[in-house]
C-alpha cells in the first residue's frame, strides 16, 4: 500500500518535470529557461531520493546531495552572467 502511494507520488512528480520542461523549451527569455531548469533540478532531487528508497540503495542519496550542490552553483553563476557581473 505504502509502496503504491510512493509510486503514485513519483508519477505526479514526473508530470511536473514534464511541465517544467515544456516551459524550458517555450520560455521567451533566458531567465525563464533558467527558472524552469531550477525547478527541474528540485524535482529531480526528489525523484532521485525516491528511486534510492524504492531500490533500497542508500548510496544514491549522496548523488542527490551533490547534484543539488552543483545545480545551486550553476544557477547562481548563470544569474551573475546574465547580470553581466561575470
Amino acid at each position: 500500500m505504502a509502496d503504491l502511494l510512493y509510486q503514485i507520488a513519483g508519477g505526479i512528480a514526473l508530470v511536473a518535470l514534464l511541465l517544467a520542461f515544456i516551459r524550458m523549451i517555450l520560455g521567451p527569455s533566458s531567465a525563464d529557461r533558467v527558472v524552469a531548469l531550477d525547478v527541474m533540478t528540485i524535482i529531480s532531487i526528489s525523484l532521485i531520493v525516491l528511486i534510492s528508497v524504492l531500490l533500497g540503495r542508500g548510496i544514491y542519496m549522496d548523488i542527490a546531495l551533490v547534484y543539488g550542490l552543483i545545480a545551486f552553483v550553476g544557477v547562481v553563476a548563470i544569474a551573475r552572467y546574465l547580470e553581466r557581473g561575470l
Partner: protein
Amino acid sequence: MELAGAIVALLGSIFLFLGALGLLRMPDVFNRMQAGTKASTLGTVLFLVGIALGQQEGAVVGKLVILILFILFTNPLSSHALARAAHHIGIPLSKKTVKDDLSNDVIKDDDQHEEGGAE
C-alpha cells in the same frame, strides 16, 4: 508510520505539480519565479519528509535531514539571484503590474561598468 509517510510524500508531489503548472501558466518571469520556487520548495520538503518518515535506518534519515536543510537554504538564494539578474537586464514585467520600485536600477548599455557595486 510508513503509510503516513507515503501520504505526506503524495501531498508533496501534488505541490510539485502545482508549482510546475504555475510555471507554465503565469504571465511573466517574476510570477513564474515565485510560483516555481515557493511551491516547489514546499513540495520537495514535504516529499523528503514523507520519505524520511518511512525509513528505519538512522544514516538514511540523517542524509535526508541534511538534504532538506540544504534545499531550504539554497533555493531562496538562487531564486533571489535570478530575480535580481532578470530585473537588472530589463526583462519586461506583466502588463497588470501596478508598481515597480526598482525601475531605476535597470542596466543601460552605456553605464554597465558602474552598476555592479552601486547598491
